[in-house]
């Protein structure tokens, strides 16, 4: 053991990029790293290891009771049964189950231990002192204020502080209205956050996907004649925006504007006209309600109309997203 004298001063003097590059260079020269090793490690973590394995485990548990029991009794063993590429050599995983009266939450107060074999690398917030400090002392306040998950006072929150190489993941409740979903469809509903415990899927809490899954379930529960039908994607977007924006305000405020638009428009094609009216009502709603500035809306409309902007940037995982961002910067 050789003391690294003045280490802290060295670390403060240089930015982390210069320190990391120096380390990389010397390790490559020593034969402990190689150019292709670094590239493969980055590619693997960026593209291959994610929460999908965990979602598949959860969906299987929702559809196969015997598997669920094996999973809760011996998480690692049950995961190994499945055809998922999980590194069980370095980690054991215990799944802890939510029910109507119990909610589970995972944290690592000492560093950033995480069930990465099933969830990939942790999100940035999971590693912050802000999350780590409060999760054990005030989990209910943390979930309510930071994750829009308002649990009733009588729902017991069990917090698991991951101090060992045994890692915890949450088995969330299967959302209502998904009885007819296939296992593959269920996989898509399982958010990463629900397996950490900051999202509950069931119970109408805001989800990691911005509530899209919950909204989909809500629409699925509507009688067929009440479900909206759309002739173009923009109609669905306008509909969804109005539903989302009026969540905290009386629906009547939007409806009043919609009625007035319908009264003023006398177009012959009822379906197309309806969503045109809907969109105008929405535009009035956001401007008159003070949500957006009228000029900002007009500018943005002009950008879309001129082809200077597309909606790719708002689509999670859209490969065109980056290109459009850089396009924006050029303006």
């Amino acid at each position: 053991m050789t003391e690294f004298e003045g280490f802290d001063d060295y670390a403060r003097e240089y930015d982390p990029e210069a320190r990391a590059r120096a380390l990389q260079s010397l390790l490559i020269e020593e034969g402990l790293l190689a150019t292709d090793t670094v590239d493969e490690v980055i590619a693997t973590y960026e593209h291959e290891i994610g929460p999908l394995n965990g979602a598949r485990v959860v969906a299987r548990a929702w559809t196969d009771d015997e598997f669920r029991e094996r999973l809760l009794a011996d998480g690692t063993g049950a995961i190994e049964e499945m055809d998922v590429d999980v590194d069980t050599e370095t980690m054991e995983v215990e799944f802890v189950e939510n029910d109507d009266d119990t909610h589970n939450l995972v944290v690592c107060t000492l560093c950033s231990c995480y069930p990465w074999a099933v969830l990939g690398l942790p999100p940035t917030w999971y590693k912050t002192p802000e999350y780590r400090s409060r999760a054990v002392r005030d989990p209910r306040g943390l979930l309510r204020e930071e994750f829009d998950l308002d649990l009733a006072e009588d729902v017991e929150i069990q917090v698991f502080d991951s101090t060992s190489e045994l890692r915890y993941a949450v088995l969330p409740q299967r959302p209502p209205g998904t009885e007819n979903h296939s296992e593959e469809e269920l996989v898509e509903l399982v958010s990463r956050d629900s397996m950490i415990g900051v999202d509950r899927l069931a119970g109408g809490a805001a989800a990691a996907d911005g509530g899209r899954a919950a909204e989909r379930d809500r629409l699925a529960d509507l009688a067929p004649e009440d479900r909206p039908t759309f002739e173009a994607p923009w109609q669905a977007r306008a509909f969804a925006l109005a539903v989302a924006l009026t969540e905290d305000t009386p629906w009547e405020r939007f409806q009043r504007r919609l009625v007035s638009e319908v009264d003023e428009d006398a177009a012959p094609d009822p379906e197309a006209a309806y969503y045109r009216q809907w969109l105008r009502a929405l535009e009035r709603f956001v401007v008159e309600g003070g949500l957006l500035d009228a000029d900002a809306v007009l500018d943005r409309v002009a950008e879309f109309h001129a082809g200077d902007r597309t909606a790719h940037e708002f689509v999670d995982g859209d490969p065109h997203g980056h290109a459009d961002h850089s396009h924006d910067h050029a303006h």
Partner: protein
Amino acid sequence: MDGVHDVGGMDGFGPVDTAEHEDTFHEEWEGVTYAAFLAGLGSGTFGIDAFRHSIERLPPADYLTASYYDRWARGIARLFVERGVLDAADLRERTAAFAAGEATVPERYDPDLLSELAAGVNEAYDAAGDGSEPRFEEGERVVVRNHNPAGHTRCPGYVRRAEGVVRASRGHHTLPDAAAHGEAETEPLYSVRFEPAELWGERADRATAVSVDLWESYLRPAES
């Protein structure tokens, strides 16, 4: 050690920035740092507990202000020097060159290296081993000793001296307190559940509980 990393139950850190970042590594040097971490573990230069302890040894102000992967970069660089793989003067000199824009990363290809490192990583992680018969049973009441070694430990400060119930017995695992300092010991590991008032007193939310994995030497039987 009583370090600032042991944040469980602390007040005042403020709101959580839950903004999602699209990329796993926000900047390329972060991925490079991760690769250097795997090189350290995989080559047997250091183990996971020595790595954690190296980060814990950062001065509190540096720990709290450095970004997550900067803490990693610091913890890893220190260990490569301490374990004699790299020379401190070489590292300083090369870092200064990169900071001045006068250095480039050398290219060298070694297609077999990643699988060699992966095998080493598996060995570096805690291997559940054999050992003495577990002293505590499921359902038994235990008290966490005032366990506060100068070196590394995985006993969070907020459970010290608290009484809890053994939720589950988890077999034998490498004792981090020993492994971080180059000693090989395994001990029975338990999941211990603590009631809120025991940990947080009057401010406790009654309908919560915290379970922590604790090694046998952290615990003693509760007095009946």
